[in-house]
């Protein structure tokens, strides 16, 4: 079989926007733990087509993550170890 449909389905979990479903959830750049859920291990922002957020909340989320990065609550990237190695030489 050229394409495995069974494995593909595992990634599609959230179809609704979590912030629309629960209005008590707030997007705040100071809550790094909540924001970290919407970033990859590498620190990238997870796209809307995967997280399932609506356009409005994704915009708010992206802004909050960028602010959190600016004040060192979230990483821009996790290539920190590599940089340390360079410094030793």
């Amino acid at each position: 079989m050229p394409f495995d449909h069974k494995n593909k389905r595992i990634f599609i979990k959230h179809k609704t926007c979590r912030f629309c479903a629960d209005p008590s959830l707030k997007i705040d750049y100071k809550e790094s733990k909540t924001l970290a859920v919407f970033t990859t291990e590498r620190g990238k922002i997870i796209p809307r087509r995967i997280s399932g957020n609506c356009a409005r909340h994704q915009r708010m989320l992206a802004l909050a993550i960028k602010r959190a990065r600016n004040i060192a609550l979230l990483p821009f990237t996790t290539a920190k170890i590599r940089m340390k190695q360079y410094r030793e030489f």
Partner: protein
Amino acid sequence: MKRYETIYIVNPNLDADSLKEVVAKFSDIIEKLKGYIVKINEWGKKKLAYEVKRFDKGYYILVDFCGLPGTVKELERNLKLDDRILKYLTVKIDEDVDPGDLIGKEDEKEERIEESNDESFEEE
């Protein structure tokens, strides 16, 4: 008047006295420029997500205040000049605020939370 929120990261190796001095210094700057401080919240020592000026930890301080755009400009200029400050970020929360009203509102909110807590206890 606009409402702002400034977070600044102080050098984590400072002792308690000089830390107080830093907080007092920047509070004075805000008040001198016709600003009103709503609250100061010290988050304490936290691990930074990436190294800033070769530090991997920092002392976070959050200041919530009302002021004019000039207040922020002057505050940020001073934050930039101070060697003990690693990083800072100012965010505008509200466009048009009356500082007198704000202090009253904050109290109300706290009261409401307390009330709701009491109710939940009664239900249990």
